């Protein structure tokens, strides 16, 4: 029994050593040769169908030296605000605090809290208020920021923010169930973040 166990042991380790992480492999973008042959036999006059993989651009591999600029993709469910835009730095409102992302940042996945996202390019800064979302920073200085709702700061109405803050503070004190308390707390968090975005 022991000998069989010993026999099983080295095999998984060797297999693990032979396979590399998917982020390190070069992009395997070539169309499948057997499929193309079979297709051409059956339908020589028609173009073969495109697969989702042919539409997706493979992520550029991690360069050996830190690139000079960070490439940012900032997307919303209904629009893509920034698409592969080269910037110097972005500051994202992560749940652990404002996080500055420079080129060469370590690969990170961060959850965002309601707060201000600022994109620094040269001497200009564009600020957005983000409701919540995630940021994926890849090892090759690509950052994907996905948010549910993001608005430029000048589209926010200060009076509505104050009113909302007062409303939810009142709701928190009159809340009974855990769920109501959580909703009121969320309201307070979002409105105070909006408030500090407008004043800060």
């Amino acid at each position, binding site marked *: 029994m022991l000998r069989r166990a010993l026999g099983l042991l080295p095999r998984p380790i060797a297999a693990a050593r032979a396979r590399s992480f998917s982020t390190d492999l070069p992009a395997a973008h070539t169309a499948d040769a057997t499929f193309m042959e079979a297709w051409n036999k059956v339908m020589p006059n028609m173009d073969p169908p495109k697969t989702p993989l042919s539409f997706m651009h493979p992520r550029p591999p991690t360069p050996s030296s830190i690139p000079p600029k960070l490439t940012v993709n900032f997307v919303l469910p*209904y629009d893509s605000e920034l698409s592969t835009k080269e910037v110097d730095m972005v500051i994202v409102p992560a749940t652990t605090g404002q996080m500055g992302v420079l080129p060469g940042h370590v690969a990170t996945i961060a959850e965002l809290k309601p707060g201000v996202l600022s994109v620094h390019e040269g001497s200009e800064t564009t600020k957005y*208020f983000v409701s919540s*979302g995630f940021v994926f920073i890849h090892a090759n200085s690509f950052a994907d920021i996905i948010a*549910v709702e993001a*608005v430029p700061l000048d589209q*926010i*109405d200060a009076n509505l923010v104050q009113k909302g803050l007062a409303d939810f503070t009142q709701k928190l004190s009159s809340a009974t169930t855990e769920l109501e308390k959580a909703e009121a707390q*969320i309201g307070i968090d979002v409105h105070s973040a909006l408030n500090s975005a407008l004043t800060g």
Partner: protein
Amino acid sequence: MASNAAVPFWRAAGMTYITYSNICANLVRNCLKEPYKTDALSREKVHFSISKWTDGKPEKPTLRTDSPEE
């Protein structure tokens, strides 16, 4: 692996992340200035028709328009 690490307050109250995220987005949309506010709220409106089926036949469908507060 920290399986029982400090959970966020909304998860402790039984809310899922997607509910939390949608509530945050709605609150932000309600605080916008006028032309942007109506645009945002109309963008998030859902329009759908429901029909219940009984004995293999659909009944008359009802049209529902859910605004994002629902």
